[in-house]
């Protein structure tokens, strides 16, 4: 019951606002894909287009070989979980889950006993058995989310679409539900697309991440791909913190203020460039080649690690560096910093 989704050259405009610009994306059957981007990047619009809740100005969406423009909403068989769940508040949990089954044409509609059995099975699947008679207002946020998922799964969808599935939940429940959703996906195997603005969530959950920016698809790839080899400066900055160093590339070396700071560059690009370096790709070293001298100006705690801010001459912003060892430098201490990994983007 699970299909491939092909998105081909989608354009979408809302009055003066261009929401999507020729977006194309192929999703394999059973794949778990995250649409990641800041607000206004068009990710929710793309999800609603796949669902059929919006019409594209140009381009098409295929489910398998079927052009979805020929399908009614009912025939698309979409399991859509809304950001705020959109549970029907005048109905009990059981009625909510059964709604899709009861909405089928009479010939395809299961009988009452069958519906009851399926509702029970779905509540079992989302680990909330026995809540049939509750109303949505009597459930916690996490429970509502799972009921919304059960309701979407009840129609045996071809594709499961989730809009900010964890957006309305607090941090701890978020973590639990993430693991649970990943597990549920591996058991049910639906082609799943979810929208998020949280890069950590996207990287942790998805098989592949599609990063959107101002209506354009910036990069699509596995979490490792996009994180380690960002295709654009935007992707690099959006996926995690990064220090930006204005450098000049000559040959295979990058120069900061005429000092070589990084060698072994394979990119065939001479001239000015921006070097993006993540805080954990900077290391405190003794006086070795390619190291940058600086002064520790600030020390902070960031969760498990400690962060040092290091002032380097020729740089307006301090370098952020994650300290991996327990031995920390003192504030004001002169240190040398070496770049272990970086991505360079040519600047004009």
């Amino acid at each position, binding site marked *: 019951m699970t299909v491939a989704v092909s998105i081909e050259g989608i354009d979408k405009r809302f009055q003066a606002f261009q929401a999507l610009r020729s977006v194309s994306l192929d999703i394999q059957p059973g794949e778990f894909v995250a649409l990641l981007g800041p607000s206004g990047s068009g990710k929710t619009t793309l999800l609603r287009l796949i669902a*059929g809740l919006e019409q594209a100005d140009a381009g098409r969406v295929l489910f398998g070989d079927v052009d979805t423009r020929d399908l009614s909403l009912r025939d698309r068989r979409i399991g859509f979980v809304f950001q705020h769940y959109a549970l*029907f508040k*005048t109905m009990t949990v059981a009625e909510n889950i059964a709604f*899709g089954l009861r*909405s089928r044409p009479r010939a395809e509609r299961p009988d009452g006993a069958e519906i009851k059995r399926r509702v029970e099975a779905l509540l079992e699947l989302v680990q909330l058995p026995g809540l049939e008679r509750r109303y949505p207002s009597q459930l916690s946020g996490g429970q509502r989310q799972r009921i919304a998922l059960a309701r979407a799964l009840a129609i045996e969808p071809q594709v499961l679409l989730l809009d900010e599935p964890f957006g309305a939940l607090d941090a701890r429940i978020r973590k639990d539900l993430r693991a649970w959703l990943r597990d549920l996906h591996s058991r049910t195997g639906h082609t799943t697309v979810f929208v998020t603005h949280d890069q950590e969530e996207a990287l942790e959950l998805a098989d592949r991440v599609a990063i959107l920016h101002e209506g354009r698809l910036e990069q699509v790839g596995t979490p490792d791909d996009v994180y380690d080899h960002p295709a654009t400066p935007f992707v690099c900055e959006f996926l995690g913190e990064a220090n930006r160093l204005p450098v000049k590339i000559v040959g295979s070396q990058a120069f900061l203020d005429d000092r070589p700071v990084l060698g072994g560059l394979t990119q065939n690009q001479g001239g000015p460039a921006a070097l993006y370096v993540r805080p954990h790709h900077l290391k405190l070293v003794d006086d070795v080649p390619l190291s940058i001298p600086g002064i520790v100006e600030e020390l902070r705690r960031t969760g498990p690690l400690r962060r040092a801010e290091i002032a380097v001459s020729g740089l307006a912003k301090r370098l952020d560096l994650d300290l991996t060892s327990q031995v920390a430098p003192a504030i004001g201490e002169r240190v040398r910093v070496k770049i272990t990994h970086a991505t360079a983007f040519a600047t004009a």
Partner: protein
Amino acid sequence: MSEAALPRRDATVPAKAAKPRRARPIGSESRLVQILLIAVSLGFLLLFLLLPLISVFVEAGARGWSAYRAAITEPDAVAAIRLTLLVASIAVPFNVVVGVAAAWAIAKFEFRGKNLLISLIDLPFSVSPVISGLVYVLLFGAQGYLGPFLKANGIEIIFALPGLVLATVFVTFPFVARELIPHMQSLGSTDEEAALTLGASPWRVFFSITLPNVKWSLFYGVLLCNARAMGEFGAVAVVSGRIRGLTNTMPLHVEILYNEYMSAAAFAVASLLAGLTLVTLALKSLLEWRYGDAIAAARHH
């Protein structure tokens, strides 16, 4: 002037603040002001609203039970009651259907002329009922634009039931739509979208999602609409022609009786209308007490 006053005030404030004062929440008025405000509003309500209501019932019963019964079972009175119920039973369902449709269109869709439609819905509130009655006379009356055509085809509108219904529909139109629009707008349309993705037909979406979501605002709107439909005087007076036993509604009947110095009978019929008001009020309070949260979202005016 203010410059002269300022230093002096500055000087007195610290002295005042130093004195221990009775604790009271910041921003609340003194006890005296509270009592005064409550007394004024309560006094006004008693004098201008409750007292007349009581006097209606007192006057109605002044000549005893048998006179009261005679007044409301007299053929003309019965005809007036029947006519009022008939007009309301046509006008209210009509306004419910059109009101729900208008509210749905305004709350769920974007289209040109939406603001114009919203102002048009409010129009009957801002126009004097007498004028709305006159408009219908002008349109459908014997000397009106469509008068000759209607007469030629034997259709009676003015001084007949259709005219009464038209006038009542016009005057009571805003009640249902005005209750529903803010509520529907606050709900948005994600519930409907969810139902559609689950495969529901548009009719099923409307009857199992949209309507149940707003049922209390709708009921509240119908209640107000009905109360106004039965009590409407101005517009109906113009188009009715006041033919006793034929085109006289209850409010008109009350006026006729009163003008003929039959005040006990007038008050007896009036007490029925007042009774309707009380029932409406009681139902409304019951609704607000029982389903306050659901209704609160719909309150606008």
